[in-house]
């Protein structure tokens, strides 16, 4: 099993948000985690990525059988955990290509594989940029600085393409995207989807799932998974809203 979350309780500022969450993800699977605002979706993403302001109260998270929670965020990333940010951060003065090359080479170092010099990496990056139809002029620009909402999200998927994670958690990647940007981002994710990796789509809306078909849908309410099913569950949610599942979480 790639990821196993067992009875996870976690929160922020002393407030418990996840209240006993269980989740199992295997390679080759796409899971959608859906839920109303405040259900704990973002908390789950951030706890998995190791954001320092979120605290784990109890429970276990195993990644390839290893205790993920005792790893620092950068170690998790090098092990193959990737979170696409809901709000990608701007890093002024650091070019996209510098940033990606450093991240890529750190992963290569970790795997005991050869690092790429700037020229070699540029060729690699150009190839990867096709996944999200990104113009190479974005490589020289500072990370996310002055990017539109759609460009930022595409840049997140470009990072995913470059780093080739085993587990990608896409945190509300569809939020703030117009229909064209959504299509490009979703097609990018579909191209990256393989039998060797797994993807967790964290989303409020069913819209993204029209483009990226999940194998499993989990409904999160009040910090717990209250309903699980196949992709048809997402359609049901679209139709009926969240109220009927919310009741189950209380």
């Amino acid at each position: 099993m790639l990821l196993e979350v067992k009875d996870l309780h976690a929160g922020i500022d002393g407030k418990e948000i996840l209240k006993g969450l269980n989740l199992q993800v295997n390679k080759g699977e796409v899971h959608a985690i859906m839920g109303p605002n405040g259900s704990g979706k973002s908390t789950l993403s951030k706890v998995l990525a190791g954001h320092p302001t979120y605290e784990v109260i109890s429970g276990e998270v195993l990644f390839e059988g290893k205790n993920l929670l005792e790893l620092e965020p950068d170690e998790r990333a090098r092990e193959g955990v990737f979170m696409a940010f809901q709000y990608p951060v701007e890093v002024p003065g650091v070019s996209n290509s510098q940033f990606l090359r450093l991240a890529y080479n750190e992963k290569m170092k970790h795997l005991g594989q050869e690092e790429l010099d700037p020229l070699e990496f540029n060729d690699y990056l150009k190839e990867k940029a096709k996944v999200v139809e990104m113009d190479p002029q974005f490589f020289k620009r500072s990370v996310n600085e002055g990017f539109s909402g759609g460009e930022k999200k595409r840049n997140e998927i470009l990072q995913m393409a470059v780093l080739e994670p085993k587990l990608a958690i896409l945190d509300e990647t569809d939020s703030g995207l117009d229909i064209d940007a959504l299509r490009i981002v979703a097609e990018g994710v579909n191209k990256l989807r393989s039998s060797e990796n797994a993807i967790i789509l964290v989303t409020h809306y069913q819209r993204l799932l029209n483009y990226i078909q999940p194998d499993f849908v989990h409904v999160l309410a009040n910090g717990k998974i209250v309903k699980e099913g196949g992709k048809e569950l997402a359609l049901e949610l679209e139709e009926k809203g969240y109220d009927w599942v919310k009741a189950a979480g209380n």
Partner: protein
Amino acid sequence: MTAEMAKENSFGTAFYALINSEQDTALHSIREKAFRVFQEKGLPTVGNEDWKYTNVAPIAAIDWTVDDSAMAVGQIVPTELLNAFRFERNGFTALNLAFANVAILRISKETIIDEPIEFDFAGEAGKAIFPHIIVIAESGSKATVVEKYASQTKSLTNTAIQIFVEDNANLTHYRVQKESAEAFHYGVTEVTVNRGGSYNATSINLGGALSRHDIEVKFTAEGGEAWVDGLYMLNGTQHHDTHSVIDHTVPNCTSHQNYRGVLNDKSRAVFNGKVFVRENAHGTDAEQSNKNLLLSNDARVDTKPQLEIFNDDVKCSHGATVGQLEDEELFYLLARGIPEGLARNLLTYGFAEEVINKIGVESIKRELDGMVLNRLNAKI
């Protein structure tokens, strides 16, 4: 005898030994006048508001040998340009003019020089040097001037540059101060920008135990534009002070100022930036920003941006910040597998690059980029 007096006397001995060989009578009298002002003023003290945070007592305490090459007597110097130098500014500027080793660069009318013109200086142990550069960018000319200070030892550099940007001339000016960590450095940049002229300066301050740079840009006719940018990166117990004055004395000129500081360990920086918009200077567009990054709890910066506006029809903004690396930016890099040490360096580099990135001359940009990385001890 106090340390102050001893110092003045050591300069006095050198001055009187050298002044007699100055044949040019006009220059002779300029030097004498300047030295008298130095004797009256002495080196500045913290009692002076402009020097409140920068204590130069360690400079005054040393019995400096004046470098033999100082004064370079017998030069032909247009004294009317030297007369424009505000040597009464402080004891350093008076001393600079008294001993001035003058170099003159005149860029002829309508001449475009692509290659940067470089002035390199490196003080020697226990010695004081007094470079004094005069740059005249004649009308319609275009050139790049680089001043570089790179002492390897405990030396004193007391330097001045006067720049005259004439009508529609375009002058780019890089000032790189990378003296040794034991060195002392004082420098002043005085600029006038005439009608339609353009002055683009970047000052990089990396070296020196104690350093200060005063820069003053004055618009003397309409349509001038100036960029006055700078970066100071300090560690250990380094102290750097930048005082700048942008003087809009005439209408319709534009000035942009972007100074950034990165302070580590127990270093200390001072930024004081004054922008004057005089009574008739309508149509002025002036912006000023000073941002500082503190990498250590023991580092300190005193920043004071000041706008003094005497006309309503202007567009002005200014601001200063002092802060640490942003946690969210740091987490973003960590989340991509970049280890914390490298992530912090990368963010610091990015902060400094905001100044370096604007440099138009590729060779200089690469060199400065290398210096920033070197200072951070980072491979990026």
